[in-house]
């Protein structure tokens, strides 16, 4: 998929209590969760961004709890994709399982500024900064992760498996 949107840049170690504080973990509805996405550091985040915008962050994005509500809140806020230098591992899995597009690239993150306009092709991993004209290539996913993504997430993938083995 190809996404185009403006950058909201965050620092390192953006944790899951910031992405969605625990007190709101009483629903799995993305739109409901989105109301409190990033609340401790960026109140009314979902209202203040445009649908299709892109989160760019430094290292260790999504560290902390295993709550799948974190990628769901970001999806609910209509963020198109998240580009970071690195992701915490549970968040990484959860993003794939819930079909939130994510990409890793140190160089890209270093030279992208808040507000830049990006175009990201998640199939090829190509990241273009339309504001500065620079572009980068992110690491593509390993094959089996692509299989999960192509099946629409882990549940689709598991469904196919169960059907095959039945």
């Amino acid at each position, binding site marked *: 998929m190809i996404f185009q949107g403006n950058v909201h840049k965050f620092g390192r170690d953006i944790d899951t209590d910031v992405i969605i504080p625990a*007190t709101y973990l009483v629903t*799995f509805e993305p739109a409901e969760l989105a109301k409190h996405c990033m609340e*401790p550091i960026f109140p009314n985040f979902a209202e203040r961004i445009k649908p299709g915008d892109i989160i760019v962050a430094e290292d*260790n994005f999504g560290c902390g709890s*295993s709550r799948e509500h974190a990628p769901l809140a970001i999806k609910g806020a209509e963020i198109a994709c998240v580009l970071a230098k690195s992701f915490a591992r549970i968040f990484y899995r*959860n993003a794939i399982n819930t079909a939130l597009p994510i990409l890793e690239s140190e160089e890209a993150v270093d030279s992208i500024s808040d507000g830049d306009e990006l175009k990201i092709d998640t199939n090829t991993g190509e990241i273009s900064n339309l504001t500065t004209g620079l572009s980068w290539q992110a690491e593509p996913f390993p094959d089996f992760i692509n299989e999960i993504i192509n099946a629409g997430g*882990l549940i689709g993938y598991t469904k196919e498996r169960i059907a095959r083995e039945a």
Partner: protein
Amino acid sequence: MALANDITAPGSIREFNKLGIDKVFDRDKVVLVPDHFAPNRNVESAEQCKYVRDFARAKEITNFFEVGRMGIEHALLPELGLVGPGDLVIGADSHTCTYGALGAFSTGMGSTDIAAAMATGDTWLKVPPSLKFVIDGELPPWVTGKDVILYIIGMIGVDGALYRAMEFTGSAISKMSMDGRLTICNMAIEAGAKNGIIAVDERTREYVRAHRHQDDEIEEEFGEPEGVAADITKQADFISDADAVYEQVYNIKAEDIQLQVAFPHLPSNSKPLSRVGDIGIDQVVIGSCTNGRIEDLRQAAKVLAGHKVDTNVRLIIIPATQSIYKQAIHEGLIDIFIDADAAVSTPTCGPCLGGHMGVLAAGERCVSTTNRNFRGRMGDKDSEVYLAGPAVAAASAILGRIGGPEEIIDGRDQ
């Protein structure tokens, strides 16, 4: 084994239901523990717990633990002998890494991963590179597993072990109790690790044997534990190969580890107590899957005995499971707590994640024996959490500021 709680299980169940199958892969190997917002804190959490309860009944899940039998999951599973050496445990809770202390491979995942595992009994895993932490020598008085792990996270950072296995070894670990080891592995995730692991030794075997038979009623109801835990004495040791490859080896002198306090808003902001300075506090919480075990309560009681909590401080103590609670009553610890003006609660995660039973207001400061001090973790975004072990937490409650047990009683007494 696949595990989930009242916050994450609803997501797992919802995804599980999309698969169009009517059974879990093994009703004895799915564990559901409503512990986070339970006993129900409001209507929404009551609905979540009910959703989990209904599923547990419909699928005849053996290991569903209702309020009254419930404890904080990561204290409860080892206590009931549900996890043991060589087991593979995945849980929709990041602190599932706790069971590495028993020689299990255990790691946290999200609700959807657990849904797929509940259906198929399978999951995908990448073998992580390993980091080895060798802690040799004698830990100073009062210093526990909590200080060891805060010290290590302070040294390597909150992503210092990203996607790695953290193995803890050395003479200080060999001498450490299982409670202390569980605390260390519990916080491996706070360094970004996939899992923490400690080699199985005689102490582990003793623990597993004792806890398997601790409660005959439970055994009667749930049957004999399966797998390695059922027959630990006959199994080969679970220890690292002599030629195991480590990405990095850290050698730490136990004597260098002082009592630690992690400042807001990251567990890696740890400092020795001697460098903390004068920090007034409003609340102290002693409990959680990190430090709500009997040994933690004993340490707190040792400090609190014969003292009163400062009038400006609220001290909340939460034994992690029913049996720890009962043990604490038998040992007279609860009397000591209540005489000191502490509030003692039934097992729950409660304040640890800003859920209930001690949520912080804006500007309030809390010393907590929990594992995370992220912004807003225990309440308002402008509240502050300082992480420490039970001795510092108890002493701080008496002093009204962050301080150590040696200000209350002589270190040689312990």
